């Protein structure tokens, strides 16, 4: 399973990798902002899952999701961010994310959201 991690914090990407390493044949591609994320979508895809942060330099996560959804309606995307207000969650869902994880998170919480998202995508 090929997973794209878009987050400006390498520490956070490492935590996500450790948490999701148990997924079947997990293979990770990393991007430090939305610009790198879009480039990775084009050059290293297709991905079976994308985790994206909200606040990043150069291009934020909401812009990244909006741009991806212009051409790709199916790849499951999870916003993984410190932004926890309801309005932010609604904005992210409107932009096209499939699920939302608020930092800080436990490994169990992230794994559960990922499993939910993958199951829904498989059933669709």
């Amino acid at each position, binding site marked *: 399973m090929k997973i794209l991690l878009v987050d400006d914090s390498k520490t*956070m990407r490492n935590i996500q990798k450790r948490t999701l390493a148990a997924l079947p044949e997990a293979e990770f591609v990393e991007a430090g902002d939305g610009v790198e994320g879009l480039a990775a979508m084009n050059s290293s895809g297709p991905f079976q899952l994308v985790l994206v942060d909200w606040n990043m330099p150069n291009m934020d996560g909401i812009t990244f999701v909006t741009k991806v959804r212009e051409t790709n309606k199916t790849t499951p995307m999870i916003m993984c*961010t410190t932004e*926890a207000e309801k309005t932010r969650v609604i904005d992210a869902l409107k932009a096209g994310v499939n699920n939302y994880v608020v*930092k800080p*998170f436990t490994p169990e919480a992230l794994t559960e959201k990922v499993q939910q998202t993958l199951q829904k995508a498989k059933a669709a």
Partner: protein
Amino acid sequence: MTQVAEPQQALNPKLIVPFVNSVRNVFTTMVGVVTTVERPTYKSGPAVSYDVSAIIGFSGQVIGSVVVSFQMDAALKLVKAFAGVDLTADSPDFADAIGELANMIAGNAKKDLGATASITCPSVVLGANHVIARLRGVPCVIIPCKTPVGDFAVEVNMKQTD
């Protein structure tokens, strides 16, 4: 020359309590250490010196900044617990980890401020006895935090806009 003290504004608990709760939540969930938060007080001068600070700016209905400051020994131990690896202070990954901790503290507190606000990406300062300038005329509240592996402090220097 006589120095005139800056008039203090009343401490607004609505701007402090969210950070107290956020610190506990972030360190318990992501670092795996229980944090004891001591009584917040006004910061009247540079006071305690620190070696590492992460700064997050706020804009919108609240403006100002939150600074999370550590002495080096505590920072190294807390980063190891958070990142899961030993990092030296001169590693870019060390600053990244400190910045991400501050990002989570600020972002997690933001939802409970009762105001619409945006936060900046973190900036990290390393260096013994550094001083971070703050907004004049805005109270700066220091929240002392104790953990089994070392202490740190969260400084909240912000106000609600009209």
